[in-house]
């Protein structure tokens, strides 16, 4: 049988961002895959060395549009760690709240995109309609629909008022209610199962050796979630990672669909236990030292390395984003599946190429 090579991307309807996969097919089966990235490398790590370190908060929020808040937060945590700053308890809970809000928004976005990838457009619109309400909450609290800019070195810039808290609680419960009607479609619908069950399987061993993280790792049966380490206020909130064992696209969808509920619970819990007091401490001086910070983003583990030398410019700033870790796993998932399944499998890792290339 003759082999043909077809490019998938860099522009493709299911890909919001440019990623190119040169796929070799035999008949309609994928034989091998060669990735090509680098379409949107922005030199962000270098830019981080040129700016002042407080200005970088706004730069790093633009590493990725979806995990924006969490990149900013992790960077702030890293700087706080170097400088030995202890942030107030209220800020810790607020950071959990904003993180979980981002997670809900990211997972709903992804579930919609997944539905779109196999052509289930009404489900896609349904999910995005629900997501719109979360985005509205973000605008109400952070002042912007996506880029919250809520985190700053020393705490949180945007405190919540009691009135806002009651609106948020009400909206989150409504969102949960609406999700109860839509989630069964992802979990039980015949069409959805037909397109995802058994597609793009990644076994537990493969997931570990290929360095998969986050929902992909958990869908392959590894109960690992960095929130278990109890950064910020997660240690006090109590939390169990969500695990599925099949390792296919369906399992990854289920993990995310269930994590939305968990994130709603955690966000409500954080608001419920919100301590009184200041949300921000003033930070003086410049960072001198180096550190590694890890945080669980919607897509998985992100690692920040920051090194300062006592001046206001950093020596080195590095970020390893979740999608970066997923590309080797994707190359393993694709061979053996059908041509028509390539978009679904590619999407199932929740690719975020801007993050990957920075």
């Amino acid at each position, binding site marked *: 049988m003759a082999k043909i090579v077809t490019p998938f991307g860099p522009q493709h309807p299911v890909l919001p961002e440019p990623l190119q996969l040169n796929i070799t097919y035999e008949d309609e089966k994928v034989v091998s895959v060669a990735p090509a990235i680098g379409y949107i490398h922005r030199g962000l*790590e270098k830019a981080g060395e040129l700016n002042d370190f407080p200005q970088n908060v706004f730069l790093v929020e633009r590493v990725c549009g979806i995990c924006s808040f969490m990149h900013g937060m992790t960077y702030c945590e890293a700087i706080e760690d170097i400088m030995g700053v202890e942030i107030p308890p209220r800020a810790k809970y607020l950071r959990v709240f904003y993180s979980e809000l981002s997670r809900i928004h990211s997972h709903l976005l992804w579930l919609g995109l997944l539905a779109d990838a196999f052509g289930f457009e009404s489900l896609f619109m349904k999910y995005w309609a629900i997501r719109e309400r979360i985005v509205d909450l973000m605008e109400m609290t952070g002042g912007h629909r996506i880029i919250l800019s809520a985190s700053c070195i020393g705490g949180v810039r945007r405190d919540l008022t009691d009135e806002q808290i009651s609106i948020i609680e009400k909206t989150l419960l409504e969102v949960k209610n609406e999700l109860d009607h839509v989630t069964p479609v992802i979990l039980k619908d015949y069409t959805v199962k037909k397109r995802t069950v058994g597609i793009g399987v990644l076994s537990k061993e493969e997931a570990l050796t290929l360095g998969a993280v986050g929902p992909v790792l958990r869908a392959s049966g590894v109960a690992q979630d960095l929130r278990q380490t109890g950064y910020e206020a997660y240690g006090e909130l109590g939390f169990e990672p969500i695990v599925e064992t099949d390792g296919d696209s369906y399992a990854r969808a289920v993990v995310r669909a269930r994590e939305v509920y968990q994130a709603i619970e955690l966000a409500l819990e954080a608001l419920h236990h919100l301590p009184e007091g200041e949300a921000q401490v003033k930070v003086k001086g410049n960072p001198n030292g180096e550190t*590694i910070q890890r945080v669980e983003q919607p897509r998985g583990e992100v690692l920040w390395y920051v090194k300062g030398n006592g001046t206001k410019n950093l020596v080195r700033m590095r970020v390893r984003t979740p999608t*970066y870790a997923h590309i080797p796993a994707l190359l393993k998932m694709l061979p053996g599946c059908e041509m028509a399944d390539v978009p679904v499998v590619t999407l199932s890792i929740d690719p975020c190429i801007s993050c990957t290339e920075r």
Partner: protein
Amino acid sequence: MSFEAKQITPEQLINETQQMFNEGYRFVTATCVDEIEQFRIIYSFDRETELVNLEVAIGKEEQLPSVSGVYLCAFLVENEIKELFGVNISDIAVDLGGRLYMIEGADPHPMTRKEKKKAAKGVKKNG
């Protein structure tokens, strides 16, 4: 504060990494820091959310073996380090030949730091 890293030499790298692999650690990433006289490369591994680091310091011209023979997934980050810093990494499992991010004819190794304070000029600066 900060983080722990086990200092090793470039010759020990493959053996130490293999040991990590055998103990079931997951490869997280490698971070290259340009210290002007030399490069420091920090390899991070994770097992059940516990982070372990190995640190290698090499001279600018020295050769570093690739760990992608042990952890295949290291090929991306090693290509990146080779391309952006110009660290001489040999035998990467999938060598993209300096074309991961950069295009033909671009300045080689943009992430390297020159002498102190050079970095202050460039993209942005106001008075």
